[in-house]
């Protein structure tokens, strides 16, 4: 069989179980695809080819196992997931030579489910950014147009899945880092409820906002990936003990009985003409399909960017205190003592955006500013959560844009942090509320770039969210597969 890499995750899995092809054949095909597309998109920081082939051979030796929901399926994980014995850099120079001594719970569960991890994908340094341009290892390109960013911070994961390097991957979403690159690269990305998936072994950015989730090329495939990793974990106290639903067999939903709430604070933003056109068309298609759209209001959303950047930066500033050059990671040559060692290691090990957020986070927690910024931001967060829950009383899900502009040319905003923070306005309210959201492509713009849309649901109700997602997925026109062209 040829071009196995084109198969979606569910198709690939069925083919493996039916012995249409072996795990090794599929993995080799994906590794070839990675080799062919990497020069153009730079989505992977480490390709684990030897391990992956060996693992696939071992699976083939044992034979297909229908009890393992990802048996033989090649995947990628963002380079913030700890993978024992493999480099784990989080896109930072400070972890350049770091080798992990333990495995993230998500990685462990993926292996138990039979998945073969083929690569670790590129991201903005410590997941801080919206374009992957802040990776210390060079930016990833958008497979639809390699002159443009793939979004971020999980830009490598989104670009990789969109370019069909593997049928699925895992990323993390702190303020939109799964949903926004999924939208910009034209694939599906799910940010689960905070606490639905263990954070153990995932390099932390904003601990009360971070959540791991899947990328795939269909909603159903995302459901299969979530089903393999969701649920409580003895190593993450914040992971919820609420039982996990059966995401592969959700309760029936009728598209004609769907009511989606449109937060006016998000829809009233100014969009680029290409995005605006696709979004309007998407609404028309939904209405035609019988979906009931209604306007809702979450007035505190106007504070969400400020609240988010204060809280996330505060948590980041102390999460990143461990990178001090003492036990692991980059250490600057010490010429004049310990104080100098700290300063030099951190100033040279961290890139500019990470330093910016560490400074902002340190500032909002420091004495004299804590109440006005940090505590106030947490109070606003409560208001946003309350308004989010209240909005869902009058509808089943919220529907919102993911990005007001399509994938942008490299370098557009790198020196304008505030503008890029404000671009996250569509995605970060969900992280503040702790709720789940699904981003899926709703069309291609006149510029040939994908546009995404997101639906958001109640906490721990991923089952209904995924079901609704697969219904509206069928309403939108398929966008196809990008033809990956190398940068000129």
């Amino acid at each position, binding site marked *: 069989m040829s071009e196995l890499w084109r198969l979606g995750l569910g198709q690939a899995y069925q083919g493996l179980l039916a012995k249409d092809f072996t795990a090794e054949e599929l993995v080799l095909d994906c590794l070839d695809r990675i080799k062919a597309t990497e020069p153009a998109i730079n989505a992977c920081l480490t390709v684990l080819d030897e391990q992956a082939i060996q693992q696939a051979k071992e699976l083939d030796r044992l034979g297909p196992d229908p009890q393992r929901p990802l048996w033989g399926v090649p995947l990628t994980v963002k380079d913030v997931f700890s993978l024992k014995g493999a480099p784990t850099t989080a896109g930072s120079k400070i972890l350049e030579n770091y080798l992990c001594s333990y495995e993230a719970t998500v990685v462990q569960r993926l292996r138990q489910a039979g998945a073969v991890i083929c690569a670790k994908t590129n991201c903005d340094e410590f997941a801080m950014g919206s374009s992957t341009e802040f990776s210390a290892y060079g930016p990833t390109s958008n497979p639809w147009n390699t002159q443009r960013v793939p979004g971020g911070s999980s830009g490598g994961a989104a670009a990789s899945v969109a370019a069909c390097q593997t049928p699925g991957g895992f990323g993390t979403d702190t303020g939109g880092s799964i949903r926004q690159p999924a939208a910009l690269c034209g694939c599906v990305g799910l940010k689960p409820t905070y606490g639905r998936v263990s954070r153990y072994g995932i390099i*932390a950015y904003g601990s009360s906002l971070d959540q791991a989730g899947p990328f795939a090329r269909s909603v159903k495939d995302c459901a299969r990936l979530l089903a393999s990793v969701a649920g409580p974990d003895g190593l993450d106290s914040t992971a919820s003990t609420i039982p996990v639903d059966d995401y592969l067999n959700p309760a029936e939903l009728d598209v004609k009985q769907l009511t989606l709430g449109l937060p006016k604070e998000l829809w009233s933003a100014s969009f680029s003409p290409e995005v605006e056109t696709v979004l309007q068309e998407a609404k028309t298609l939904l209405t035609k399909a019988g979906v009931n759209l209604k306007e809702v209001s979450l007035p505190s959303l106007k504070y969400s960017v400020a609240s988010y950047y204060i809280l996330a930066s505060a948590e980041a500033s*102390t999460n990143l205190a461990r990178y001090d050059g003492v*036990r692991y990671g980059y250490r600057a040559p010490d010429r004049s003592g310990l104080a100098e060692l700290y300063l030099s290691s951190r100033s040279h090990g961290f890139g500019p955006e990470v330093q910016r957020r560490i400074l902002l986070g340190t500032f909002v927690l420091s004495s004299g500013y804590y109440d006005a910024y940090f505590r106030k931001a947490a109070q606003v967060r409560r208001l946003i959560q309350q308004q989010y829950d209240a909005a869902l009383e009058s509808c089943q899900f919220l529907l919102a844009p993911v990005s007001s502009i399509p994938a942008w040319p490299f370098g557009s905003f790198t020196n304008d942090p505030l503008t890029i923070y404000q671009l996250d306005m569509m995605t970060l309210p969900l992280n503040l509320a702790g709720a789940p959201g699904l981003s899926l492509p709703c069309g291609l713009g006149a510029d040939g770039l994908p546009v995404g849309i997101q639906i958001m649901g109640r906490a721990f109700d991923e089952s209904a969210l995924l079901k609704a997602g697969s219904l509206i997925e069928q309403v939108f026109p398929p966008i196809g597969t990008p033809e990956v062209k190398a940068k000129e």
Partner: protein
Amino acid sequence: MVEMEPVIGLEIHAQLKTKTKLFCSCLVDFGAQPNTHICEICSGQPGALPRMNAKALELAAKAGVALGCKVNNRSVFSRKNYFYPDLPNGFQTSQLDPPICQGGELSIAGPDGPKTIHLNRIHLEDDAGKCIHDEKRGRTLIDLNRAGVPLIEIVTEPELNSSTEAVEFLKKLHGLLVRLEVTMGRMEEGEFRCDVNISLKPKGSDKLGVRSEIKNLNSFRYVGQAIDFEIKRQTALYESGQGVLQQTLHFDTARGETKTLRSKEEAHDYRYFPQPDLPVVTVDEQLIRELQAGLPETPEQSLEKLAALGIRDEVAKLLIDRRGALEYFEQALLNFNEPKRLSTLMTELLLPACQKDAIAPTESLLTPKLFAQLAKLIEEGTLGRRAAYELFPELFQSGLDPKELAQKKGVLQISDSSALEALAAQIIAQHPKEADKYRQGQDKILGFLVGQLMRSSRGAADPKRAGEALEAALKAQS
């Protein structure tokens, strides 16, 4: 110059007696090779997350219950941020607001009778690793075996007014926490250590002076010395009109002096905020009730109880202060309900022997039951006091039955009256002349007859009762 009075507050760190660390399952074991009891959590690896040890929580609540604190149903862990090479995460996980326990008190003997020292709070936190300064290489070496070990910090109100009071308070607190098995309390291992806040104020005034803080004292003696030195230093500064600067000090044990560690300007800004990786700490009413029910009585309660049994103060204090003595006494009492005699005998025989062997009475081979038997034998007159004292070392070492050993050694007294009567009759029959002289009124001759009886019994008879038996026999025959 007005007379100045020291005002002292203490911050005590006690290591909790758990098998594993506060946030990971690494063993608490300081004897091990450096950096062997470490994992991704306590060495601060990227992505690792903490999970709290339930036992540590229980022990912290237990300390709170024993000290009369309000144990909060909900308390919160916070990150305390600062850089130091022995602090793997770049923050310590501690509690700010609210801590697990608030308020509470402990009384000590003050100059004018009992004095109550109020507690501000008790909170849970993890310990840092250990830095070893290698002079030769010019490097600092870091061992993280201790990193993440559970501690409670007990903070007093500034209500102590002398080094004597401070040391007395610490000793009493240490004794209590060790007895409760909250901590092992080995001070040389740093399992019980304290920071001292100290300032001077004009006597009678409410206004506190500028304070200094002496860090990390790990012996009662150093606490006393450091406070005395600091009082002198501050007094001299006031007298010379210089005034005291707010600073953090270190006590140089070799020189017996305090040294500046950092000044107010260099003070940390710890940027405390709620630790997002840990849920709220909950203590339910049920646990508090169980802890309350399981508490041993306080020394004051014990003293009262012993007084009610008619036991003298000095004896009672000995029983309370010596580890295991009170339990031993109470068990012995079940077998021989003569509290006064039993306690006296303990202070005369058992406690010195235990002290000599550096063991607790409860660890002795001579069980409370056997000890009660010994007391009973003396009380009945079956064993003479002197014989008992002579026998004791062997009993203590062997744990043998006192009556059997006394019998074997032939030192058991004949207290059985029929046996004594028979012996008396025999002696009178053997010494008819002397018997006659007694009957004729020479009372002194009785001593001779008693001597004969004692010799014939090989010392096993009680001389007093032997005399009585002889008298009775002589009178009956006349």
